[in-house]
Each structure stands twice: as structure tokens, then as C-alpha cells.
């Protein structure tokens, strides 16, 4: 049956139309909201079509890694809640959630978006740790892009809490924001048959041949790539996918303001 669904989706794509009536390279309606959580220092909610995700930023203090004594650290966690999709199970994180967290992490880390040197409180002793938590509220496809966008928005929304004698007072937030250098945006391009599409639906994600997540900066610099799916990609295809992702990133970037 999954073959049958694949054939059906391919037939749609041949007719230059998607399962929900969109064009191949068209995004669903995106809306964003920040400051949605009272308990997190920074938070954001991103809605892409029927997909809804939330991101939260928490601060902690701790010892730095011995090899980078003057730099703060960053962590990304994704938890795929059973509430958001019947196929998700509660329990230890699966392959999917680990990949999602790592792809978002890599986009932010490798673009050097956060100035980690400014997260240092006392070199070799105390630094800030930024923890980004990602959760889906409803999974209707394209968690990669939604998570990446939500994470960036939450980072931009975050404010440092007050700190006294190595103790954080989470109830008092300062007006100091996270030191940001650049703002990466991730776009995932999906290949089904010979067709390249963006913003996949759940049905399309299930039958994809290959996917490529591209994190880019406004000037088109590529910060991170992640390839998934069982089929290989040729060089031309990768080039086409990157071009498409860079172009779509411009649209998504508007929501970062």
C-alpha cells in the first residue's frame, strides 16, 4: 500500500500539484509567535500549515569544557511527544528526535550564531549554558524547518536571568539578550522520483527518496547540510536543492524579522 500511496503522490507531482493543492515549490502559510512560555527565558511557537511546534530557551551556569575555558556552551534537545502524532511513542529518544535535535544544533553551532565567548562569566570556572528544547504540538510534516525557525526565534526572544554568587534567580530576568552574530535559516528540500519539493506533508515525508536540509545565512553562505533518505543524490541535484533552499530561506527569513 505504501507503494500505492507513493505512486499516487508521484502522479500528483507529475501534474505539478501537491497533495493539498499547493505548487511544488510553495510553502504552507507560516506564522510565528514569541514569548509563549512564562517559565522559559525565551520561547517561540511556529505554525506551518497544520504543523505546530514550540521552542524554549533555558539558561544554566556550569563549568566550561577544559578545551574551551573561555566559551559558554549550547545544547539542543528535541522530544517528539505522542500527543503530536500517533506514531510517536513516549520513552527514550528515538533516531528521529536525535536527528532533528542534531540538525537544528548544527545549524546554529556551525553558523556561529551565538557568540559563545560572551557567555563566559569567569574563564575556566563559570560559563553560561544555553539549553534549547524543541517540542512538536502537532506534527503534519516538515518538523526540520519548523524546529530550526522556532529555535532561532526563541534564541532571539531569550533574556538572561539574574545571577548572584553562582546562583541563578530565574524569577528575575535582566534586559540583556543573547549575543547573536548571525541568523541561520534551515530549509529542507525533498526528492520524490525526479521531483524536488519543499515543505513536505506527512504523507510525502513517508515516501521520500532523499532529503537535504540546508542552513544558510542571508548572503547565501551554507552553514550546515544534512542528507537523509535511502536514495543517493547526484551533484546536479544537490546544487539544485541548495539553490532552491537558499531561495526559500529568504521567504522564511521574513518571519525572523
Amino acid at each position: 500500500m505504501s507503494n500505492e500511496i507513493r505512486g499516487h503522490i508521484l502522479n500528483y507531482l507529475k501534474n505539478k500539484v501537491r497533495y493539498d493543492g499547493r505548487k511544488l515549490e510553495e510553502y504552507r502559510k507560516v506564522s510565528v509567535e514569541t514569548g509563549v512560555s512564562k517559565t522559559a527565558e525565551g520561547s517561540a511557537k511556529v505554525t506551518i500549515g497544520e504543523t505546530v511546534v514550540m521552542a524554549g530557551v533555558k539558561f544554566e551556569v556550569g563549568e566550561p569544557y577544559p578545551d574551551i575555558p573561555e566559551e559558554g556552551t549550547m545544547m539542543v534537545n528535541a522530544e517528539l511527544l505522542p500527543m503530536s502524532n500517533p506514531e510517536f511513542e513516549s520513552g527514550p529518544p528515538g533516531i528521529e528526535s536525535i536527528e532533528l535535535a542534531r540538525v537544528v544544533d548544527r545549524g546554529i553551532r556551525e553558523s556561529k550564531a551565538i557568540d559563545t565567548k560572551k557567555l563566559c562569566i569567569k574563564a575556566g570556572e563559570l560559563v553560561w549554558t544555553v539549553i534549547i528544547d524543541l517540542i512538536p504540538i502537532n506534527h503534519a510534516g516538515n518538523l526540520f524547518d519548523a524546529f530550526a525557525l522556532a529555535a532561532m526565534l526563541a534564541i532571539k526572544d531569550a533574556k538572561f536571568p539574574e545571577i548572584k554568587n553562582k546562583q541563578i534567580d530565574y524569577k528575575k530576568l535582566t534586559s540583556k539578550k543573547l549575543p547573536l552574530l548571525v541568523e541561520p535559516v534551515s530549509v529542507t528540500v525533498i526528492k520524490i522520483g525526479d521531483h524536488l519539493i519543499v515543505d513536505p506533508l506527512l504523507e510525502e515525508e513517508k515516501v521520500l527518496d532523499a532529503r537535504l536540509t540546508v542552513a544558510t545565512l542571508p548572503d547565501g553562505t551554507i552553514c550546515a547540510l544534512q542528507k537523509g533518505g535511502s536514495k543517493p543524490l547526484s551533484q546536479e541535484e544537490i546544487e539544485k536543492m541548495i539553490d532552491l533552499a537558499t531561495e526559500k530561506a529568504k521567504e522564511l527569513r521574513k518571519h525572523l524579522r
Partner: protein
Amino acid sequence: MEKVNVKDKEIVVPGEVVAVGMSYLPGQGIYRKGDSLIASLLGLVRIEGKVIKILPVSGKYLPKRGDVIIGKVKDINFSGWSVQTNSAYPAMLSMKDGSSDFIRRGADLTRYFNIGDYLVTKIYNVTSQNLIDLTMKGPGLRKLEGGRILHVSPSKVPRIIGKQGSMVSMIKKAANCNVIVGQNGVVWIKGADPKDEILTVETILKIEKESHISGLTDRIKGFLESKGKKVTGE
């Protein structure tokens, strides 16, 4: 003292005492506790003579004997097929109800229905434990080939089908698609052109969204006409 606390078509929440007294009977979504009738669902109250029932606003599908549903084959075991019905309870299609052929012991059951196949099937029994027994014997019951699946709220299914199937046949004719609506909220759509299928999906989702506003049929008719489709008959 006997009295009804609500008006017809009023919205009630679970736990609300709808009526007091033994002269009223509990229908769907209402249970009796001592003297009073209490709502167990969120929905619109209907008072039909002595019977008080609730039309749920939303909710999971509750299996009922005689319902024609669309299910997905989840597993194959020694005695038949295990089917996903979009409800909370397990459903079985036994070998003898699955096909009129004689199936030899140890035969390959995937020849009939494989895992992942969608079936139009009928509930012929729901046990006291809410186990569902299915059958494929009956007019129109079959395995579905091709097409796409759409999930809607089971409480909206009567609106999508319409009076004596008027709504669904209007959509079928106008959009030139084959449509089967299962009572469990699973809809199967197949048309020659993807654009027709998309229009059908849009129309059904519109019905689901606007079913509580009056004048539904005319609005859907207008919607289909605005998409350049000819709507004939009632």
C-alpha cells in the same frame, strides 16, 4: 421532582445534570445516576420525546453494529486480519468473513489483504468488551485500490453524507470523483485527475468546518459552482 434542566439544542458539558426524574430515558452520551440523567459528552442536547441524547461536537469513533467503515490492515495472524478502525478498540476480520473463497489451512493470507491495505468493511458485532468483529460480506464491501485517504471528525460524517447521501453524491458528480465515506471518519477519494481529488478534499474539509452553520447544502453548491463545476440535481 421531575424536570429537564436544558433546552433542545443547548450545549452541555460532561457532568452536567441534564434532567431529573425516572420518566426520561438516557440516550447516546447520557447516563443515569440515581434519579438524574448526566451528560458524559460535550455536545448539543436533543430531546426526542422521552429520550434525551447528545450529539457530540467532536470525539473518537465509537463502534456500532451495522456501520460501514474504512479500516487499515494492521496485522495478519492465524485466524484472520487485525484492522485499525480509527477507534480505541481492536477489530478483527476473521478468515471466514474475509472472503467467500475456501481458504486452506496455512494459506498465504496476504493474497487477500496485505498489511497497509485499506478496506471498506462492515461491523457485524461489537462485543460487551468492545471488541469489533468485521465482515467483508455485503454489497460494496471490498479492498480499496489506489486513491487517497482523508481523515475527518466522525461526528461530522452524517453532514458529509447528507440526507440519503445527497451531499456526497452532489460532490461525486460535480468533482467527478469516486468517494466512500466510512462511519469512522475515514474518507476514500479517487478521481482521474489530481485536481478533481484536491477539489473533493477541499469541499469535504469545508463541510467539516462549517457543518454547524445553516444553509450548508446551498453553500457547498455555491462553492463547487465557484470552482467552475456544474452541480446538477438535489
